[in-house]
């Protein structure tokens, strides 16, 4: 049994940079690399792609990420655990095998299935968010349960180089290899809590090395243009040391670790995953060297009886239009333009919004009342079940060129389809996972 394992995190969302994972794998001396690429909506979007073409529905960057990564993983004997399977891990595995064949590489991929529970949803289930039946939100397009370690562990017990999952709780991607290597008892909730804390700190990749933290005035971070992604040395007792590859940009500090520990955590004493209800309140950080933070003190209580299921639904279309005004009376002209659009089409939309970018688009009027910028960009958005009506927003804004206030320039228009996501809870024993093995 190992006393220590090293896990890197080379992506924290579907659109993350590609090269940090390559650097981690080449220079990080990793046992495991995790790529966390699925958000709530990402999987609903992937499900829609799969409906249109059954050979798609895995992460759109899978092929580009694996192109450079696959040879490095095999060369350095690093196992990859990733949720890039998204809505279609089986097709994703085929894509990896094709890539391996092209490169003349032999690879084994274990696919984790079971998160897709769409067929078992009646539509009458009540949402956690609004306590309303699912069917009242609109046409349902996807339902994916958050699987945990119990779904990933059987895949780790094979000799697969790559473990490809769909919807899995982010910290479970990290906790599973710890349990696998240290033979932890899954009912030891203190250890499950400790491992979950470490997974939670790592799962957003660059957010623990200075990304989403940096402020050149109050929290400066060096070399952000080549931000390194993190790895963690996990010890058999559940402590961890978070660090990064020497020479990469960014910094790992106690301040940053505190921010990330609380990130997206609704209740720090009760952080629910499929594996444990973890308690973050007594987590302790210690700086033991440059860019080396020791983590201890996490714990946990029990395992939830239910799993969260993200349900995607058709939520219509959002249309947007933008146009800029500058110089004398810029804000007055922008407001006049907003009023014109409001009077012409505002009544056509379920939701309609006017923003003044550069002045009040992010935090409303109250906090920005003293600002007087040189230029203002008017942004109008409206939501409608009808794509043509949504498109009208941008058309009307564009028509301000010749029909609106003086000096309006740089009009742009957009329409996009909206997929909403709500959640339900499902008895965990009704959700069965399985693995399948493929090799090139």
């Amino acid at each position, binding site marked *: 049994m190992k006393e220590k394992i090293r896990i890197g995190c080379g992506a924290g969302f579907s659109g993350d940079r590609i090269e940090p994972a390559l650097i981690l794998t080449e220079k990080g001396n990793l046992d495991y690399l995790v790529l966390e690429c699925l958000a*709530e*909506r990402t999987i*609903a979007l992937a499900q829609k792609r799969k409906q249109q073409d059954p050979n798609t529905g895995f992460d759109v960057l899978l092929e580009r990420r694996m192109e450079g990564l696959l040879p490095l993983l095999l060369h350095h004997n690093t196992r990859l655990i990733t949720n890039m399977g998204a809505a279609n891990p089986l097709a994703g595995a085929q894509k990896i095998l094709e890539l391996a064949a092209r490169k003349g590489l032999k690879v084994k991929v274990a696919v984790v299935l079971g998160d897709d529970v769409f067929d078992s949803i009646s539509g009458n289930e009540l949402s956690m*968010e609004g306590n309303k039946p699912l069917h009242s939100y609109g046409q349902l397009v996807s339902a994916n349960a958050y699987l945990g370690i119990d779904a990933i562990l059987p895949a780790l017990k094979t000799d697969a180089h790559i473990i490809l999952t769909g919807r899995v709780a982010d910290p479970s991607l990290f906790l599973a290899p710890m349990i696998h290597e240290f033979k932890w008892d899954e009912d030891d909730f203190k250890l499950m809590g400790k491992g979950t804390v470490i997974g939670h700190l790592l799962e957003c990749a660059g957010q623990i090395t200075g990304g*989403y*933290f940096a*402020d050149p005035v*109050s*929290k400066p971070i060096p070399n952000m243009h080549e931000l390194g992604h993190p790895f963690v040395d996990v010890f058999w007792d559940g402590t961890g040391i978070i660090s990064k590859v020497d020479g990469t940009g960014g910094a790992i500090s106690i*301040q940053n670790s*505190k*921010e*990330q*520990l*609380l*990130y*997206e*955590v*609704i*209740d*720090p*004493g009760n952080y629910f995953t499929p594996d444990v209800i973890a308690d973050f*309140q*007594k*987590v*302790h950080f210690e700086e033991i060297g440059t860019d080396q933070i020791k983590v201890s*003190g996490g714990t946990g209580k029990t395992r939830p009886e239910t799993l969260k299921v993200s349900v995607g639904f058709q*939520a219509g279309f*959002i249309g947007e239009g933008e146009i800029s005004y500058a110089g004398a009376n810029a804000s007055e002209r922008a407001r006049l333009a907003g009023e014109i659009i409001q009077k012409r089409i505002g009544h056509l939309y379920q*939701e*309609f*919004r006017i*923003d003044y*970018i550069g002045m009040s*688009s*992010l*935090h*409303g*009027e*109250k*906090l920005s009342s003293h600002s007087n910028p040189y230029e203002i960009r008017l*942004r109008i*958005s*409206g*939501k409608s079940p009808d794509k043509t009506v949504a498109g009208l927003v941008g058309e009307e804004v564009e028509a301000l060129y010749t029909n609106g206030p003086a000096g309006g320039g740089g009009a742009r228009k957009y329409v996009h389809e*909206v*997929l*909403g*996501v*709500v*959640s339900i809870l499902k008895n965990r024993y009704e959700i069965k996972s399985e693995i399948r093995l493929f090799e090139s």
Partner: protein
Amino acid sequence: MKKKLAEIAHSRAGDKGNTLILSLIPFQEEDFDFLVKEVTAAKVKTHLSHQVKGEITRYVLPELKAIQFTCLDALAGGVTTSLAMDAHGKSLSYALLEMEVELDSGPSQ
């Protein structure tokens, strides 16, 4: 004398559906008690009234020397369907840090 929170603390915003989560962490740990005393859930609710429509729960974390505000009904429906420019609410950490506090009982700096 009034000071902005930005001068003594930092914050990160996170979202879960329509719930906004804001941390508040002093640059100097000795300012933690001052923040606990001054930055109550009620004051944050008033400060962010344009944004947060629901209840705010404050979690005080003495071991970490950090405070967290969990704000319900705060993101115009949430990232997937909101019309807002910043649908995640990622920039709202800096809205919290705009809040002014009275420095009579004074933080360290």
